[in-house]
């Protein structure tokens, strides 16, 4: 069973196997059931989901590798487009990237058991708690 990393530590996955596969299922977001959980590939541009924003409660973006940063850009764009539901990164993300993921708009990160053993909760917590303010925050706030 996968582990979900949040700001408060590891939690059990409350959504296991509920995610609809965007590439197989939906395509027309207006057909999605209300409260849907959808897994999307990191190659989407984001706009295709907009008509379904009021139906989607949870999105999962896959990171095929920890060096593939497309998921960060997609998350940021979805937030810009107004997506307000839960946003999960899943796949190979490391504790050192947790702060980045949060700053791009993710709420949580899903990791497998092997990674959870090698990078236990304390490592993720340390990464979160020892973060410093970002240059981007200083540059984007109001003058």
């Amino acid at each position, binding site marked *: 069973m996968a582990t979900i990393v949040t700001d408060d530590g590891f939690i059990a996955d409350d959504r296991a196997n509920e995610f609809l596969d965007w590439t197989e299922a939906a395509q027309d977001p207006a057909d999605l059931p209300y409260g849907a959980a959808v897994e999307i590939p990191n190659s989407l541009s984001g706009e295709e989901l907009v008509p379904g924003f009021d139906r989607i409660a949870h999105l999962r973006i896959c990171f095929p590798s*920890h060096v593939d940063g497309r998921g960060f850009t997609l998350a940021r764009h979805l937030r810009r487009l107004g997506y307000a539901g839960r946003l999960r990164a899943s796949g190979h993300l490391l504790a050192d990237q947790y702060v980045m993921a949060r700053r791009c708009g993710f709420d949580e990160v899903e990791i497998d058991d092997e990674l959870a053993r090698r990078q236990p909760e304390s490592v993720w917590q340390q990464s979160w708690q020892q973060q410093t303010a970002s240059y981007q925050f200083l540059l984007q706030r109001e003058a």
Partner: protein
Amino acid sequence: MYLYSEFDRTYVRNRVRMFRDQVDRRIDGSLSEEEFKPFRLMNGLYLQLHAYMLRVAIPYGTLDSRRLRQLAFIADRWDRGYGHFTTRQNIQFNWPRLKDVPDILDALADVDMHAIQTSGNCIRNVTADHFAGAAADELSDPRPVAELIRQWSTDHPEFTFLPRKFKIAVTGSPNDRAVTRAHDIGLRMVHSKEGQNGFEVIVGGGLGRTPVIGKVIREHLPEADLLPYLEAILHVYNAIGRRDNKYKARIKITVRETGIDAFRSRVEERFRIIRKEFLGADQQVIRRIRDTFAEPDYVQAPTAAFDDALRRDPAFRDFANGNVHRHKNPDYGIVSVSLKAHGRTPGDASSKQMRILADLAEAYGHDELRISHEQNVILPHVHRKDIPAVFAELSRGGLGTPNVGLASDIIACPGMDYCALATARSIPVARDIAVRLREIERDVGSLKIKISGCINACGHHHVGHIGILGLDRAGVENYQITLGGDATETAALGDRAGPGFPADELVPAIERLALTYLDIREDQDESFLETYRRTGLAPFQAALYPDAVPKGRGGHPERSNDAVS
């Protein structure tokens, strides 16, 4: 120069602490080497041929004596007493031990320096015109802009895992000394017709195995829109840049495959959204940055000592003609210190030389230094009366070589002597060419020779007037020559001259090119590049391949089908 805020200091210290922790976790196995790699790279640590190499950022090439002395200290304490200045205004230490690296980073932080984002698939150390803030032809100092971009790009949560590395250069002068057309993004500070400050934005340039001259994506971007526009470009690149093939992952390929117009419309569309997220603080920040780049407190004094030395001392005359450039204050000169003494490794400086340079900057140069992408050191503000004394001190330290801009002022990558990727040696070739051309180089005048030891083109050979590319042909080094490249505002890629040369025939071949130029130039004022542009490849090809049957006159031969593709 830029003064770190408390925020900058805390930030850099925190990064050192994080890296120290990552090194510990790598050593105890909780990070695999594959997982550790991007983190060590984004802290400047490479694994090279013989050892780790640490690349330290010198943002936009600006240093002062305190920082240069600290680099000398690091070279002595943790390395082998020297450093190597690179074509991206960084300094590399070739022999650090992994366990010492966090301590080196702390020593850098002690003087407000770092090695952040000097490597890895992120936005790299931002480079700028090495004469910035001093050049007579400058419209506006590009360094505050480069510093703003440094801050914005540092640990950017969205852009730290890009398809490939990303290099940005800025110039504030119409004479482009920052090679803006061969960067992922090049920024040229311009005034609009209405007199508004802004940027010409160039995208998708680059050298490497697929050299491309960048294209203009925005002719005039208002100054205040810079960060959102950069963010839009990076956003599009990160989303659609190729990740299936490392050699097609740079933005130059994205732009080529998408088409500049389609790429531009995607960027503009994103820009309209992103612009709303910048609420004005960036403009406040750049004002604070600008205040820290105050002009030096110029000395008013007669310049007669300079003119006397010119009359009296022929060695000084050579130095003044080549190594001193026009300063915006006519009483001052910009002094370039060549790290290209004939027969030495281009770009290397010993700790002793670093200390001499630091002392000179302090005594005569308003405590400012610059590192150029041409791998030289610059004293940007020297009063003319002091230049003879500076020259004398430099000469005593082996730093007075009057060859800036001449044939022996060669850009060379580290090549097979250090680099794991190299397919041929670069440094010994550069040394041999410099020694061989020494007697005629003053007569030849301006000539940019650039040498890369593999097709990744770190030595910028594509934009050398004479470019040399070292390859491996069945275990034997072979050097291809390109002619007519240009790194400036009239940027051009060199034309391939023909078959390559083995190492022992290369240096005489380069000499034949120089002698041919002397034969066929119209007069002394026509430079090598101008002659080449007038005559084309034919006379130079005849000199390179005297035994070959001529292919016809004046035309450029087809690019050969092997190698550079």
